């Protein structure tokens, strides 16, 4: 029962935040933080509470409309627990980053909490119709975040974000309905549907529908056009949620459902995933080298990292899958850290154009130190979770085909080019026309340190991530093994 609380809590919290804004003195901010904090506690309690089925940490099934075969089927294992913790944690970080007064902050925090609620839904639900519902629901509040509180051409980028994701969502909806209709019994329960055998051709088409929605959300080229615009014009909190959370839902979807529901389809489409991922990894990295807007640069790095996750997921071997999962967590922290820092610079200086920035080393040494931490994370320096993820993906790729491994290694090299360029433009050199005068405040520093140390923690102590992820990876491999023989 407590799993539903993970969705209801932020949902109602959002509504409460709408009204709390009138009380003044940051009432809605403390409310949001409180709600997310309770959410974390509930998550931990649910995971430790044990569940009837040993495969899952927590499992709950409540019928919603049996005549239509729809039920709230929530299951949480190591991977989804990590994603849920990420969603709630980054929600809190997003709230802390936008602590200054911004206009109608009630609705702002409501949209924030609703995004968290919707993505919690995606990470937990195993009823495909409910999954599709939360998948579509996720787009709306983030659209609001970008459209109302963004800057620059915010309406246009919010609209682009909405169209790309909504249209892709249709792919998922179509596949879900086709799946539900073709099943003999009226149900959308993923576990039941997984048991039914389907011809390979149908599986491939169904997987294409699912994959379209996941890949567009994962922003792998050529479907990535919405990400740079959305990131450039989103508020800092929006960017953190976008990078830390929404990209992960795509990755999580690709990790969980293709192998479970359409193993033959997975094997048929895996090469497509690998090729798309390789092109994306190189294209994202090269594009990042050319950007003059700091946030756009980091957005393209996200495109590159997520393409590597796609390669990992479509690898189909233990190392690749584990690498993809670890990369998902690592990227969430590193991207959020960089977006947060660039947001902090933007709040102080008013511009993100690299040509106008610089000289942080002298004017804000603390800033420079933390930026170096973010720099080494985006660079996938060993000791960070990113490196662990990418090294595992490369190992997996060697087992699949050495060319893919070579491509990921090249992407690793190009990552140095754009990372050092970002560092050179922002930290080194003479201060720009509008220098950053005041260094990181204690609040901002604590956020940056939390995000940075999280990357290092999971990089240096990989078992914290790998042991909980193993059951999820084994499940995927088991369903593939059954088909490969």
């Amino acid at each position, binding site marked *: 029962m407590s799993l539903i609380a993970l969705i209801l809590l932020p949902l109602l919290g959002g509504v409460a935040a709408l009204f709390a804004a009138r009380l003044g003195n940051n009432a809605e901010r403390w409310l949001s933080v409180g709600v997310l904090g309770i959410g974390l506690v509930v998550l931990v309690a649910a995971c430790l509470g044990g569940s009837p089925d040993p495969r899952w940490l927590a499992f709950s099934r409540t*019928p919603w*409309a049996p*005549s239509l075969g729809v039920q709230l089927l929530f299951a949480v294992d190591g991977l989804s627990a990590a994603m849920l913790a990420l969603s709630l944690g980054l929600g809190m970080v997003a709230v802390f980053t936008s602590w200054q007064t911004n206009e109608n902050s009630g609705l702002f925090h409501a949209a924030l909490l609703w995004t968290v609620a919707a993505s919690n839904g995606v990470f937990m639900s195993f009823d495909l119709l409910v999954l599709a519902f939360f998948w579509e629901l996720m787009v709306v509040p983030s659209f609001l975040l970008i459209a109302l509180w963004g800057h620059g051409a915010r309406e246009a980028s919010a609209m682009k974000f909405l169209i790309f994701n909504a249209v892709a969502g249709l792919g998922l909806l179509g596949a879900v309905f086709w799946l539900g209709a073709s099943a003999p019994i009226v149900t959308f329960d993923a576990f039941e549907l997984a048991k039914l055998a389907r011809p390979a051709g149908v599986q491939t088409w169904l997987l294409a529908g699912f994959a379209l929605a996941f890949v567009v959300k994962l922003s792998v080229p050529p479907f990535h056009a919405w990400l740079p615009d959305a990131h450039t014009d989103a508020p800092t909190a929006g960017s953190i949620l976008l990078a830390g959370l929404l990209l992960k839902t795509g990755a999580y979807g690709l990790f969980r459902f293709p192998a479970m529901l359409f193993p033959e389809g997975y094997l048929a489409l895996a090469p497509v995933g690998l090729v798309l991922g390789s092109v994306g990894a190189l294209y994202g990295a090269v594009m990042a080298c050319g950007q003059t807007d700091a946030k756009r640069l980091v957005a393209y790095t996200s495109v590159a990292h997520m393409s590597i996750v796609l390669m990992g997921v479509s690898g189909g071997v233990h190392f690749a899958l584990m690498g993809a999962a670890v990369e998902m967590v690592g990227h969430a922290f590193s991207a959020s850290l960089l977006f947060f820092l660039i947001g902090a610079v933007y709040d102080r200086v008013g511009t993100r154009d690299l040509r106008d920035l610089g000289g942080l080393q002298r004017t804000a040494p603390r800033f420079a130190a933390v930026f170096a931490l973010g720099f080494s994370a985006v660079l996938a320096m060993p000791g960070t979770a990113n490196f662990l993820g990418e090294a595992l993906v490369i190992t997996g790729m060697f087992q699949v085909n050495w060319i893919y491994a070579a491509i990921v290694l090249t992407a690793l090299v190009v990552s140095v080019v754009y990372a050092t360029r970002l560092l050179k433009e922002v930290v080194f050199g003479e201060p720009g026309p509008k220098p950053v005068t005041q260094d990181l405040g204690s609040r901002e520093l604590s956020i940056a340190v939390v995000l940075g140390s999280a990357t290092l923690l999971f990089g240096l102590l990989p078992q914290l991530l790998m042991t909980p992820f193993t059951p999820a990876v084994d499940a995927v491999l088991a369903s593939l093994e059954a088909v490969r023989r």
Partner: protein
Amino acid sequence: MTLAVLPLGLIGLAAVVAMLLAPRGPAAAPRLAAAAGLVAAALVVLVRLPAPPAPIPPLLADDGLARFGTLVACLSALAVLGFGTARREGPALIAIVALGAAALAGAVHVTSLLLGLEIASLALVGLVVLPLTPKSLEAGYKYLLPGAAGSAALLMGAGLAYAGTGRLDLAAFHGSGSMAALATALLLAGLAFKLSLVPFHLWAPDLYEGAPPATAALAGSAAKAAVVIAILRLDAIVPAQPLWHQGLALLAIASVLLGNLAALRQPSLVRVIGYSSVAHSGYIAAMLSCGIGAAPAALLFYIAAYLPALIAALLVAASLGEAATITSLRGLAWRSPLAGATLALALASLAGLPVAAGFLAKIFLVGTLVGAEAWPLLAAVVIASGLGLFVYFRYFIVLFARDGCVVLHSPPPARAVMAVCTAALLVFGLYPGPLFGWLVLATR
């Protein structure tokens, strides 16, 4: 056996007491008496739900359908009491109509069928005429005259059936041969008049416009539901003649199309609701024509979804008084949110839009038609729904317009009924599980 007839007895007692209190005593007394009787009857039915059927052999059956019919009759009568009729005799008549409807719902014999029909109709004529305005008198007369003709036709049918089979229970219409066919045709004509199916529908729009909205609500809900249940019972017994299903189908197609077509450019809200009741009878007739006797749960769900919408819409029309036209409704949602929201949701439900219960009702309708592969009927329903969307949306948009002058004032009981109807529409729409489950259980 006696417990089965208890609800009828209680409603009857309520009617008598209300009549006695009408001339003397405080103004609210008759309404309270009627309400008390109805509530008691409803409670008895609810308490006896799990109890096994205890029919009164020849006349009344006490099965799931009867209980559902009685319950619907009591609840809709209670809701209509909430409208607050001006005249003191209203509550008594309302109780009598409920009594007729309850009897009809349980009727398995020609006499109880006839009695139930006539008690409800004649009391309804009384209610229509109550305000004694020229419009209401005209509406009353135009309901009485064809009504009498309809009853005569029904009786003629019953006579022929009795001549043919020598039985007077509903199975009398079961025989084959030309005599039985004629009897069934006449029976169908009589019942079609009560359901206001085209071409027997001419009284409905005038009654909805002329009569006070409370009476119209009662006619549309309690009376119609009971007649549908009677037809359901007949449907289970009388499938022999092809006439029965084909007749229903033809009547359904006609009333579905004409009902929505005639309402296209209607300025008056109550006339639109009149035509919509004709259309919805058509949709119900369509489901009946597919031989739904085996699984009536879908049809009963349709009724359960339709009634709150009808009552809510008429309630808002009643609160607006004479000026319930499209111009006076402008911006209602902003000036009086509860009434606006109720009307909006009711219109959405009548149109079959997703959030309200109407959407699921329409899904079941289409499902039944597709199941029975009645393609012409499906085509008619689709076209009619298309037209219907335009009809209801014209009013829907007007509700949310920015300008608007009429301020609506509705007494507390009316606001309570509005709230209950809206809640019913939302719950049946979003969480249909338990209702649908109970209906399937009730009609097994």
